[in-house]
């Protein structure tokens, strides 16, 4: 996928993220759409750098607009995408069920890196609160990753030629 298309879709997800806060019940955490998009994209596609760049840009925008300290979310997002590059070497990226592993590993790396960075910077948050949040949020990421994987993998399918009898007339 081209970088411009990735950035455009990520921008759409950024605005959709804001809308989700208005519609989801108050007790539920909000799924991280940009995280799901970039980790599945980096997992499926061959060229990962565009996905890492998109993760960096939109992580930075999100940090600037919502977070207390700029850079924590960005670093966590880049680490999550980088973990996908490592995961690709161990599991089959062409199987749809791999998206579930991708969602779990990506979410865990994101949350754990975010917590480590915030602990280093602010020293405030406990790991138990973080893990409770992860357990509530990861199932939403699994569903999202499944859907995003389906749409991204369709781009990679080489369409079967239907005109095979054309040359035999």
């Amino acid at each position: 996928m081209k970088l411009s298309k990735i950035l455009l879709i990520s921008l759409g997800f950024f605005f959709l993220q804001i809308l989700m806060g208005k519609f989801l019940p108050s007790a539920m955490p909000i799924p991280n759409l940009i995280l799901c998009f970039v980790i599945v994209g980096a997992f499926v596609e061959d060229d990962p750098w565009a996905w890492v760049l998109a993760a960096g840009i939109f992580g930075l925008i999100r940090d600037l607009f919502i977070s207390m300290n700029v850079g924590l979310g960005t670093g966590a997002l880049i680490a999550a995408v980088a973990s996908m590059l490592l995961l690709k070497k161990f599991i089959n990226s062409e199987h749809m069920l791999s998206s579930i592993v991708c969602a779990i590993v990506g979410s865990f790396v994101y949350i754990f890196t975010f917590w480590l960075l915030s602990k280093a910077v602010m020293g405030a948050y406990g790991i138990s609160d973080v893990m409770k949040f992860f357990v509530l949020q990861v199932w939403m990421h699994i569903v999202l990753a499944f859907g995003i994987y389906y749409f991204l993998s369709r781009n990679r399918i080489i369409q079967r030629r239907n005109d095979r009898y054309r040359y035999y007339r």
Partner: protein
Amino acid sequence: MMRWIREHKLISSLLLVIIVTFSLLVTSIASAGSGNLVTRGINSVVSFFVKPVANVGGTVSDNVNGIFSYRSIMAENNKLKEENAKLKKQVVNLTLADNQLKELQELSKALNYTAETPEREIVSADVVAMSGTDWTNIFTINCGTEKGIKTGDAVIAGEGLVGRIIDAGKGWAKVVTLVDQNSSVSFKLKGNLEMIGIANEVEDGKMKGFMLDSSIKLENGEQLITSGMGMFPSGIDVGTITKSKYDKDSHLLTVLIKPAVDFKSLQKVSVIL
């Protein structure tokens, strides 16, 4: 080097993003969460595009919720009608008190008396974005420095204290709530204004703190208000005590406080300037 940058545009852009992020992180830590000119400028631009989206979302959400929660809205409407009738009766009494107040103000003006606590202006704002994707409790509102909002201002909702402003720019401001680990508040008992405590931790969505006087007896359900010491004005509802226990290790009477405000469903807030 320029050739390498031209040949590896993506990687160069990524390195640039990482360098910018790192420098912004350093300045953010140095300023304890407050931004600088660059971050505020970027936020103002982002806020310009986000506000219409948030307004549309809020309007659609209100209408959809209205359809599905018709019964609760009717019940709330009836309750408000009764409350309105009571308030109308109170207005009559207040009108008489208003005349007395005017006399008092004229008298204080004649004597050149200056009040210790001047009246504070209140600005209403809508919640535009929440940090719901992680466990921090920070949100962004759609008003900022153009309305006089500045870092440190207290934020309230109808039920009570919400938090404080940590950064503000043109058209936006970031609020950290009371249930964030970086927040603390000094409170006193509504029933006994001499009993003061501090809440400086969070546990399972509730605030945790301690009383300065460990010998007092507390009951569950006691209401707490801000003490006025620190950054919050006095008299704002903080929450209610759900549990109190004497900690033998620290020799302090610890309390668990259920906040007065439901932070997850906040849509509108007010900022005390």
